[in-house]
């Protein structure tokens, strides 16, 4: 039967199910198919910290949202147009986010009395009129999958587990996605078990064919490719991009990358990824604790590697003393903090930007470090290179503040030309630098960068000792001299403060904005989308986004002071706003949410319009 085909410019789909239902994988595959088609994409996984919460319960619901469009998009979308609910819990947990009129595809097999009772449904929402405002598509996903696999040599359990591929097949049909990459993926994933390849492919095709034949789905949709810059793309998450950025930093500096890490959500994927790249000379050590992880990284830096440690907020707290040592030793060190909701264990799989204060100030003594933050998943690649550049050039710890939103979200990435990446080569000290020609002065600085020489063990004639005790200028000998300490403290501060960073750029297409929205890190997408919305209503607004939080761009004060009002949205209680007020005496308006979720463009738009009304 011929189905009607309708064109859409954008769609937001949310796949939701039990945490054992494979929703992340389903979302991932759908995203990959969508990327192949050339749509712009943004994704947002949302999963519980528990690996397998009790089946069928609300805390066990895992979801994956994908937004795709025929134009460039900035966020994973505020509200889904389509919800795939694999069980009653998934429906209940996500219904409130759906606008009226949205499509809901439900797996009716899971709507049993027992499963309904688990989440407090007295009657099935499929049978009463509680879903009257939505377009509900009841599909017996599990039983149809099992039926389709009747002739396959797989257990009933394995057959049931393939139901996510049935759902993926159906959605792929519905949105006219190319599926070759999924078939290839299944062949790779189950290479050791051909019977599972066959079963999963069959389940996928059954889902596709079901869409084509059933009358319940009368319409098929198309979303045309977006106009994107020519080149080769791949879809990438922030954690993957960050890992590749570190590998690239190793290649471009010619130094081995050494990662010391202790597993922690949501940073562990960087450890997993880097451990695969031994052929690049990358060493990964899964340390006994967070302190050892940064200690090993610092020890490797001392030996001439690019030392890196990756963690989340609680880990940074533990590493703080070693980071201060690195400040005193003046050695390169990259500390990646993939922020999550705190304090303490907080909400490990939810996002937040509340570690800015810790990154800027969370050490004993005057211990300044450089701090940078990526603005999107693919930007994590370039942020990692920039962190390495600063660490290597200025011999300093650099904290890279990613967060769960960019780390696990994904977007298309225009692959850069390797030769266009920054040249990060460094020169180790090779000969004495004292005036007498024989003495080595480990704290004699380069007048331009204020960096001290990096003399690695193994270099004859430069044997020297460094340590956490205050050092005399130039010689590096232990010193308790008051004037020397004052000088060294100020020099360490100046060393960071004078790192040249690019000026901040302002986006104000109308050119007459009186209100500036200033953000940092992962809020770039939602703020950008909100600004677009504001402008579409004929209002002017300017957007600027900070990548360098320490040091800050030299033109920032001037930019801030040229607007009547400055609004700073943050997923914390105003940490950047505090800095801006203190440094620039600008009476910034702080807009804050700490719900563990990224801002929606809609709520930011409303906030900005309120501000604009009062200018």
């Amino acid at each position: 039967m011929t189905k009607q085909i309708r064109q859409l410019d954008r769609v937001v789909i949310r796949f939701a199910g039990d945490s054992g239902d494979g929703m992340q994988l389903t979302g991932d595959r759908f995203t990959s198919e969508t990327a192949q088609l050339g749509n712009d994409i943004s994704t947002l996984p949302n999963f519980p910290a528990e690996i397998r919460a009790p089946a069928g319960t609300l805390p066990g619901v895992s979801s994956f949202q994908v937004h795709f469009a025929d134009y460039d998009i900035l966020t994973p979308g505020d509200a889904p147009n389509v919800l795939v609910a694999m069980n009653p819990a998934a429906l209940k947990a996500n219904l409130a986010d759906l606008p009226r009129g949205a499509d809901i595809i439900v797996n009716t097999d899971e709507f049993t009395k027992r499963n309904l009772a688990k989440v407090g449904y007295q009657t099935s929402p499929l049978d009463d009129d509680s879903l009257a405002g939505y377009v509900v598509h009841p599909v017996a996903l599990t039983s149809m999958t099992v039926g389709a696999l009747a002739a396959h040599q797989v257990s009933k359990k394995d057959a049931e587990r393939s139901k996510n591929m049935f759902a993926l097949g159906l959605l792929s049909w519905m949105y006219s996605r190319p599926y070759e990459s999924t078939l290839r993926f299944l062949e790779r994933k189950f290479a050791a078990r051909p019977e599972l390849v066959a079963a999963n492919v069959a389940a996928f095709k059954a889902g596709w064919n079901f869409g084509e034949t059933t009358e319940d789905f009368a319409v098929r949709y198309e979303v045309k490719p977006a106009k994107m810059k020519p080149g080769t793309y791949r879809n990438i998450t922030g954690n993957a991009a960050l890992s590749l950025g570190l590998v690239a930093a190793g290649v471009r500096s010619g130094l081995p990358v050494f990662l010391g890490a202790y597993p922690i959500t949501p940073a562990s994927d960087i450890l997993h990824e880097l451990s695969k790249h031994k052929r690049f000379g990358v060493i990964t050590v899964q340390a006994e604790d967070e302190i050892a992880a940064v200690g090993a990284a610092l020890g490797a830096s001392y030996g001439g590697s690019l030392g890196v440690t990756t963690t989340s907020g609680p880990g940074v707290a533990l590493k703080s003393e070693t980071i201060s040592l690195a400040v005193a030793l003046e050695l390169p060190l990259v500390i990646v903090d993939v922020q999550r909701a705190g304090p303490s264990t907080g909400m490990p799989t939810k996002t937040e930007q509340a570690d800015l204060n810790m990154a800027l100030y969370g050490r004993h003594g005057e211990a300044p470090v450089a701090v940078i933050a990526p603005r999107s998943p693919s930007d994590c690649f370039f942020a990692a290179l920039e962190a390495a550049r600063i660490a290597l050039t200025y011999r300093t710890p650099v904290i890279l503040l990613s967060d769960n939103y960019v780390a696990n979200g994904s977007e298309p990435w225009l692959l850069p030309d390797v030769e266009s990446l920054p040249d990060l080569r460094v020169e180790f000290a090779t000969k004495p630098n004292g005036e007498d020609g024989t003495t080595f002065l480990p704290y004699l600085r380069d007048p331009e960068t204020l960096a001290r020489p990096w003399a690695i063990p193994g270099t004859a004639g430069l044997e020297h000792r460094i340590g956490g005790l205050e050092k005399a200028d130039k010689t590096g000998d232990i010193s308790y001299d008051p004037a020397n300490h004052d000088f060294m403290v100020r020099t360490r501060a100046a060393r960071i403060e004078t790192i040249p960073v690019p000026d901040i750029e302002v986006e104000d297409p109308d050119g007459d904005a009186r209100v500036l929205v200033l953000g940092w890190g992962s809020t770039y997408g939602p703020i950008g989308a909100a600004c677009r919305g504001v402008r579409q209503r004929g209002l002017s607004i300017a957007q600027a986004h900070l990548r360098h939080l320490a040091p800050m761009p030299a033109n920032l004060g001037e930019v801030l002071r040229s607007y009547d009002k400055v609004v700073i949205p943050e997923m914390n209680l105003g940490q950047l706003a505090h800095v801006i007020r203190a440094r620039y005496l600008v009476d910034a308006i702080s807009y804050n949410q700490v719900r563990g979720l990224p801002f929606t463009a809609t709520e930011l738009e409303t906030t900005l319009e309120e501000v604009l009304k009062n200018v």
Partner: protein
Amino acid sequence: MSEPVAVKLTAKDFKSDQEVRWCPGCGDYAILAAIQQFMPELNIPRERTVFVSGIGCSSRFPYYMNTYGMHSIHGRAPAIATGLSVSRPDLSVWVVTGDGDALSIGGNHLIHALRRNVNLKILLFNNRIYGLTKGQYSPTSEVGKITKSTPAGSADAPFNPLSLALGAEASFVGRTIDSDRKHLQSVLRAAAEHEGSAFVEIYQNCNIFNDGAFEQLKDPSTRDDYLIRLEHGQPITFGADGRFCVVHPPGGFGLEVRDTSSVRPEEIVVHDATVTDPAYAFALSRLPGLDLRNTPIGVFRSVDRPSYDSVVQAQLAAAKATVTETPEQQLAGLLGSGDTWTIS
């Protein structure tokens, strides 16, 4: 860069220009002098030798060695040295630590370095007291010790550092004494030759806060009856004319000291540091009583086990062996791996 020096180094070459600032009479001086004198015989160039320390009196050690060195932070030396050693297998990396640094604040790093068998020579200066913070009890102080922080006597049971190291799977464990230069050097020599972690406890006198802690082991009138000098391949006897010996008591788990005259010669345990089962070295480590009687010194255990460094380097080498492209080509390949699409 100056050319590698082919001339034979001497103790003087290992002395840095820094004034040594331990308290007069401290046992650390003797250890420093012994190590400076011993280093040249290893034939390792100074620039390839690195001393890493934590915090405490002993941890000032690197400043006085004319090698590469890092005086780091409290307890973390084994972690920092792990990163250095694993990434630079060409270096000889030594960790200098104390009983507080290694066993209290840094206990976790110590046991994991030993478990992994990182190629580190770990020298634990045990004076059974906190010296740098002026006299609190340490994790090796005896129960009931009266110190500034324990006026009524310490309630803590102490660690036996060698038992701990053995429990942590150490492949080399030894003990020596600050005042016995010849013995100290012989144990360090064996440690230096060992591939993997070598853990050496050095009894060290703090003459300010815990003077005479090991006096019975040093006093000529008592030491022979107190010390058991372990020698590989030799029956374990000690005391004047070998009047005491070590035996496996029938039906028991450990080792015991007997009068040599009361046992048959074949009952005397012949020391073998290469015994695979750590239970033997553990039993040796449990011989001394609170009064320091029956204290073995020497190499307790020295077994072959691949070092962490060598395994990591072998994995790197295996991965790199398949590479035919330049790093830039490899990187371009990596960036473009997975599902890609092209927009023209």
